[in-house]
Every structure is written in C-alpha cells, then in structure tokens.
C-alpha cells in the first residue's frame, strides 16, 4: 500500500517538477480558495450579514460578480455559434476551448448566486418541483441548467476521440480516467448499438461514419441547441433586472438588449485573455492561423465596444429627459458612482481598449490585445457593480451611504470562487485537449470529418 502511495506521489511530483510555474500558480489559487472558505464559514457561523454592506442593498457584490462571469460565459456561447451554427471554420479551431471556458465560467458564476442565496439547497429542490413561470429567475435558472447539460454533451462529443487516444498513450491511473471520460466501451455496448439502430441513428445514417456518436454532425447539432438555449438564458438574465418596475434604472426593454451586446464583448475579452495567457504561460508557439484569428477577434471586439458605447450613450441621453429615470442616472453621471462610470465604464471598458485594439491589430501585437481585453474585463466588472448597486440606491436610500465599497468578506468570496474557476480551467488546459489544432482541411468538401481529424 505504502509503495503504491509512494509511486503515486513520485508520479505527481514528477509531473509538477517540469513546471514550477504551474505549481506556484495552483498554490496561489488554492490559497485564494481557502480564504473564500474562511469567509463562507464565518458567514455561516456568525451571520450572513457580513456578506452585505447594507441591508437596503441586498443585491450587491456577489450578484455583480455573478452577472459579470455568467454573462461573459453566455457571450462565449454566442461566439461559439459562429462555428457550428454559421459554419465559420476558423472559429471551429477554438470550439473546444470556447465550450470548456463557457461551461466553467457559467458553473462558477452560478456558484456566486448559490452562495448569495439564503437557502441554496431549497433552490435546487423547489425550482424543480414548483417553479413560478411568471418569474424571470425561475426561467433563467432552468435555461442555464439546460444550456450547461447541452454544452457538456457537445464538449464531450468534441473531445471524445482525443480522450480515447490519450488513454492509449498513457498508463496507470491516467489511462483509467481518460478511458472512463471517453466512455470508450459505450460504442460496443448495448446502448451504443441501440443508438446506432434507433431513430436518431437511422436519421443520421452516413456510410462514411461507423457510429452515430462519432458523427461530426452531432456536436454541430448540440452546438446549435446550445446557441439557442444560451441566448434565451442570457435574455432571461437581463429580464431579471428589466422586469422590476420598482427599480427605475433597471426597468425597461433596454437591459435585455444591452446584456446581449455586453455578453458579446465580455465573452470575447475573456476568451482572448485566457487564450493569450495560456499560450504565454506554457511557453508554446501560437499557430499563425490562431494568431490571425485572435487579431480578427480583437477587431470585432473593438466594433462591439463601439456598439456598446453607442447604446450606453443612447440610454443616458434618453434618461436625462425622463423624469422617471433621471435621478438614478444622475447618480452615475455626477453622484457617488461617477468615478466608476467615467473612468471604468467609459474609459476602461469602451474608449481606451477600442483604440488599443485598433493599434494592436495594425501592429499584429498580441500584448496589446491582452492589455485591452483585461481592461475590458475590469471595466465590465465595475460596470455591472455600479448598475446593480446604483439601481437600488435611488429608490431605497434617500440620503445615500458614505461608501459603496464591498466588505472584506465579500471580496474574499469573490476572489476565492474566481480562484477555483481559474484552477479548474488550468487543470482542464493541462489534462484536456483544448489546444487549437490546425484549420480543418478544405472548408467546403471535407467538413464531415472535421471533428475526427485531430
């Protein structure tokens, strides 16, 4: 038994020895997770009140972090639509990374909201057995659950053959895990045969593909489903805020639309940041096609930032003449939230990165793209925070609070959950086949064998 443990330890150390950076990175993330664990424990033992800076503002930092991360994940789902739905082959290079990043960001984003709930366990039970169809939160939760299941199936179908290959190359525990993940035995099992001979099997029959599960059209089908459910879930997330007639800043048709646009640009920013950092971190050379795609994406991102800025300007401009909405908007323009609005929302999130992206795409400079994307992410977080907090300050607190900064415990939980998210993504990057392959051969003629050609 001891020998086995020793062997396992040596194996693990040998894996880590080659990359001290990886070791340091994971330790830092684990420390962040521990801090979050401490804050969570304190909130359970003492009172949940330590996670709120004002009882009048019940949705604050945690909900902002939730909106930020989940909306970025949903934006990735829309971006992923370019591959399977609209058939752009250069985006399909990145499908696996986008799908995995989307799943992890949405799962950990949902964790923020679960930690914010008074009784998360009841949420799981009662949203299943007695959902309120008039409530946007119920629709949002249900749609995100469906979306997650669909994307996980899509991702699994995409990486299945790679996992099987890896299982053959590895030994020991790794081999077992990889073959379990790829469900290699499923093909020859009764279920596999049943799938082949079932209605779906006959419908998808293609003489070039032996089994239904290996059919490249299947992940495309799931990709399309994921696009539809993801967009619907995102619209419902915007509606959660937009339905509340008692909150002048949130109410109206504007926010479901703005959530879609902001999802696109935060999704692009998250994808570019993660991709560039992971290449630099591992010291890998980026394939020129991937590089070209990243530059192209940064151009699209600059355009989206301009669209988002135009929408914001429209909203602010029209609200100034609307007696119902003037007061909360003035909070953003000249009130306690003005620094966040002008510096972060206008500067960090819209104007500066747009110029950086234009410059970086002219110079083909990935460092510039990375800088701009990180700025967009930071600006978007502040934007969500201000939108959510200022929306509640206007009708709830007449005289205003002295500060609107989050408490230390809130910050610890936010950092910790984000740390676990990064940890899971890093492990996925290391052990799952996420890296961009070459562009599939021949966009028109050979598209059927797209996903088998890795």
């Amino acid at each position, binding site marked *: 038994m001891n020998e086995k443990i020793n062997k396992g330890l040596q194996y693990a150390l040998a894996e880590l020895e080659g990359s001290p950076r990886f070791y340091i990175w994971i330790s830092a993330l684990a420390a962040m997770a521990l801090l979050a664990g401490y804050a969570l424990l304190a909130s359970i033992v003492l009172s949940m009140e330590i996670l709120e800076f004002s009882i009048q503002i019940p949705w604050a930092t945690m909900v902002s972090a939730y909106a930020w991360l989940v909306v970025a994940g949903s934006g990735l789902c829309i971006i992923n639509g*370019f591959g399977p739905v*609209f058939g752009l082959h250069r985006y399909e290079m990145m499908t696996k990374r986008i799908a995995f990043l989307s799943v992890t960001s949405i799962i950990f984003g949902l964790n923020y909201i679960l930690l914010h709930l008074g009784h998360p366990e009841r949420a799981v039970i009662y949203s299943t057995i007695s959902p309120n169809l008039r409530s946007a*939160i119920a629709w949002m939760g249900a749609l995100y659950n469906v979306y997650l299941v669909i994307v996980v199936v899509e991702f699994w179908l995409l990486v299945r053959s790679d996992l099987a290959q890896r299982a053959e190359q590895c030994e020991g525990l790794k081999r077992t895990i990889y073959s379990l993940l790829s469900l290699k035995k499923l093909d020859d099992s009764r279920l596999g045969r049943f799938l082949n001979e079932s209605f779906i099997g006959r419908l998808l029959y293609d003489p070039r593909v032996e089994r239904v599960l290996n059919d490249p059209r299947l992940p495309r089908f799931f990709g399309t489903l994921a696009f539809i459910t993801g967009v619907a879930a995102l619209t419902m997330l915007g509606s959660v805020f937009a339905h509340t007639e008692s909150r002048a800043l949130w109410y109206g048709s504007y926010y479901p639309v703005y959530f879609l646009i902001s999802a696109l640009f935060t999704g692009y920013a998250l994808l570019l940041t993660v991709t560039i950092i992971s290449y630099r971190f591992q010291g890998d050379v980026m394939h020129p096609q991937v590089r070209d795609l990243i530059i*192209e994406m940064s151009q699209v991102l600059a355009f989206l930032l301009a669209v988002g800025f135009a929408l914001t300007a429209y909203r602010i401009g029209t609200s100034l003449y609307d007696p119902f909405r003037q007061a909360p908007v003035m909070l953003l323009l000249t009130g306690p939230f003005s620094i966040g609005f002008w510096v972060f929302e206008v500067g960090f999130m819209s104007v500066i990165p747009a110029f950086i992206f234009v410059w970086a795409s002219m110079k083909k400079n990935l460092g510039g793209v990375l800088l701009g994307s990180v700025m967009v992410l930071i600006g978007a977080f502040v934007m969500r925070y201000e939108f959510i907090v200022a929306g509640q300050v206007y009708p709830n607190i007449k005289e205003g609070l002295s500060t609107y900064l989050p408490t230390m415990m809130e910050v610890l939980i936010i950092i910790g959950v984000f740390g676990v998210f990064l940890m899971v993504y890093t492990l996925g990057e290391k052990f799952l086949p996420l890296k961009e392959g070459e562009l599939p051969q021949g966009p028109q003629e050979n598209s059927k064998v797209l996903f088998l050609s890795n």
Partner: protein
Amino acid sequence: MGRAKWHRKTTHRPAKTIGRRGFLKVLAIAPLYAALGNVGIAHGETRQYGKLVDTERCIGCKRCMSACKRWNGLKVDRYELITDREIDLSANNWVVVNLRIDAKNRSRKTYEHWACQHCIRPACAGVCPVKAITKLPGGPVVINENKCIGCRYCFQACPFKVPRFDFERRVTRKCHMCYNRTPLLNYMKPACVAACPVGALRFDYKHSIIKEAERRVHRRGGSSYIMGLTEAGGTDMLTILPTIPQDLGFVVAPNKVVNQNLDKIRISATGIMAASVIAGAMYLYAEKTRDHDKEIHERED
C-alpha cells in the same frame, strides 16, 4: 298570432350546447382573457378582508408594534418602542410607526403605520421563483418561510419596499396580516388591530372597510386622502392620510398593477428580438468573411 307565439315557445333549442362558431369565438377570446386577465378589477371580491389605518386618529403609542412582535415572536429592541426615532421595516419589525411631517405645512405632524400593504395583485408573488409567496383568498399576502430560498427578488419587485431579509433564518419575512391568528370567520382581529387603544386600526370585510374610510373622510370635510384604493392596482390595507402621501414622505407606488405579466412578456420579447438581430448580424459577418477561410487554405497550400 297566438299560434306563432305558442310555436316559438315550444320550438326545441338546446340552450347549453355550443356551435362551431361559438367554439371558435371562445378559442379566440380565451388566450386574450388569459393575457389580460391579470389586469383585474380592484376591490371586486366581497369575501376579502382588509385593514384600515386612520393616521389622523393615531397617537403614536406603538402598541401595534409591540403586539405584532409578541404574537409573531419577533426580537425586541427596547429603544424602538419608546422613542420617536425613525425605524425602518426589518425582519423583526413587520410594522413600524414613524412620525411624519407634512412638507408643505411643517406644523402638521402625522404618525405613519407602515407594513405590508397586501396588494390585490402582489408583484412579490409574481417574481418569487419558487412560488413561496401566495395571496390567500381572504386577502393576506403570505411568505412560506419553509419554502423561501432567500433570493430577495421580492424586495426588488415590491413597490412599497416591504419584504426584508432575516440574516439568522436566511429567509425573507414580512407582515402576514396575522393569517395564522385570524380564523377570519370567527372574527378575530390581527394583533396590531386588537391592540390599538384609539380605534385608529380597523379590520373588516373589504367593502365595509372602504365604506368606513369614505365615511370618515366625508365627515372630516373631504380633504383627506385614502391610500390603497389605486396604488399598485389596489391594496387590502387602506390608510387615511391628512394629505397626499408624497408630501408626507411615504413610499409611493404607481397607480396601476406593478409587474404585470404582459409587461414582463413585452420586455423579454424585446430581448429575443434583439437576439435574432444579433444572429442575423452574425450570419452576415460569416457570409462576408467566408472567403477568408479559403484564403487561409490557399496560403497554406
């Protein structure tokens, strides 16, 4: 003539069947009714109960607050029951009494008895994701504390900012019009009403409450304002105020049902339309740049 009359009487016309045309009419009207049904006619139900607050009679003794706390087992902060300090609603204060000064006439002071207004069409019940909030047939809007998940969406939706989060029980709590105390048919009153020493609070059938409020206002010369007849589409708690609620610094709800279903559908539909526009833009982008894929291949070859 007589014969014709007789003939008309005896003609057999089955009154309770429905023809094809009638069926189609019903089919066309039913969804419209389902959609518009939530507009509702305020104060239409006769078996509904209501609470009347007459602020012009209130002396600010706060016995209603202490009775509420005693009946519902809520925590007592001893200062809040003996001072005129402003007290906010909380998980342990389901009813508050605060001194209000008329903004237009500073010498006029009124005590405000503030609690859940028990809307006829409650916005909180419409947004609760797990149906933990229900409007009982008698009138009270009640939160099921064993079902509440603590998301606080009801607080965001409430036009009166009433439901408050209890950090210890981790659920949202508010006044439930003592539905558990009031086997309403036995005519027991809610704790606050029973405790009021000057008759500023009254509990009765809704229609007689409205009549009583109008009678009192009429007797005082008609300058008073009855809050709750139109606010948020009508509420089951009526408050007689010496002037309009805006001047007294009350939370003012719009004079219509808040968070109507049709409105929610309209807002979400805008999002879906925007999503289809975005999908169209993505399609155009994909079509415009499809050659780029080919170019890359040619370069590779």
